[in-house]
């Protein structure tokens, strides 16, 4: 193995680490803050019963929420059991993982502002479309 290549790639990796470590710590602190600030019960209190409006609400809440996707399944499951529509719950769990308002500053810094903004807007719209399609297809079976 070429020692020069190993040294070069180690230095490149170290530079990437140096560039991103502060951003990663900041995002982790922000995510932790959001997880602690928004209690699980909060979610079930703000849905209206209208499928379309609820999907929009679900998508908005999912976008501003952060954390492990497993939490979104747990909250989504709880919402379903409380009578919230499947379209709204799907939009919620989809935006939880595909849209990241909390991570937006980090994504902008690392991947470019325009890319981050357009990707998040598109993912938000797609989440609503995909959630409607999922439930429609599910009803066919």
């Amino acid at each position, binding site marked *: 193995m070429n020692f020069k290549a190993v040294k070069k790639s180690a230095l*490149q990796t170290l530079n*990437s680490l140096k560039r991103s470590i502060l951003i990663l710590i900041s995002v*982790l602190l922000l995510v932790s803050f959001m997880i602690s600030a928004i209690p699980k019960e909060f979610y079930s209190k703000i849905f209206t019963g209208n499928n379309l409006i609820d999907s929009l609400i679900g998508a908005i809440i999912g976008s501003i929420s952060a954390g492990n996707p497993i939490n979104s399944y747990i909250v989504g499951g709880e919402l379903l059991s409380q009578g919230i529509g499947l379209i709204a719950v799907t939009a919620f769990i*989809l935006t939880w*993982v595909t849209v990241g308002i909390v991570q937006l500053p980090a994504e902008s810094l690392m*991947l470019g502002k325009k890319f981050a903004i357009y990707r998040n807007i598109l993912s938000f719209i797609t989440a609503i479309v995909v959630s409607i399609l999922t439930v429609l297809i599910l009803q066919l079976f």
Partner: protein
Amino acid sequence: MKDLIKKTSGSVKLFIIVALIYLIFGILNPPAITKAFNTFLKISWGVIPVLLIVFFLMFITNMFVNAKKFTKELEHKAGIKNYILAILLGILSAGPIYMWYPLLADMKEHGVHDSLIAIFLYNRAVKIPLLPMMIYYFGTPYVIILSCLMIVASVINGLIIDKILITQK
């Protein structure tokens, strides 16, 4: 002062803002910040192994991938093959989305298309280890339909982002 703000990098500014949020809430509501900080330590503990894998992958990529060749190949072969690769990498990647930003930024510097990065990020939502949990709550048909639609949506998203960003250049 203005010069100092200008000279300060975006990452430092972000960290200062987050530190200020913690400081303000720490004064207003100390238990909430203690809880947030404990969550931070707990998440960090889980995230460190993933971060090590990410940086190991970066090290391997840097060592074996010739940046120029890699860029050229992706430029010429941008198409179904690369979309499938981005989908698979997105699905198989582990850990929170933000852990992957450094690697993606590196790939972008190597000339990887925005569409492929967008496809990768979208498919991070399809998590194989979490599927049993999802099936438990929503059922198998729902999970299959949703996963398939998400993969299709990821490609559409990627193509649209490429179009938008190319048009704006």
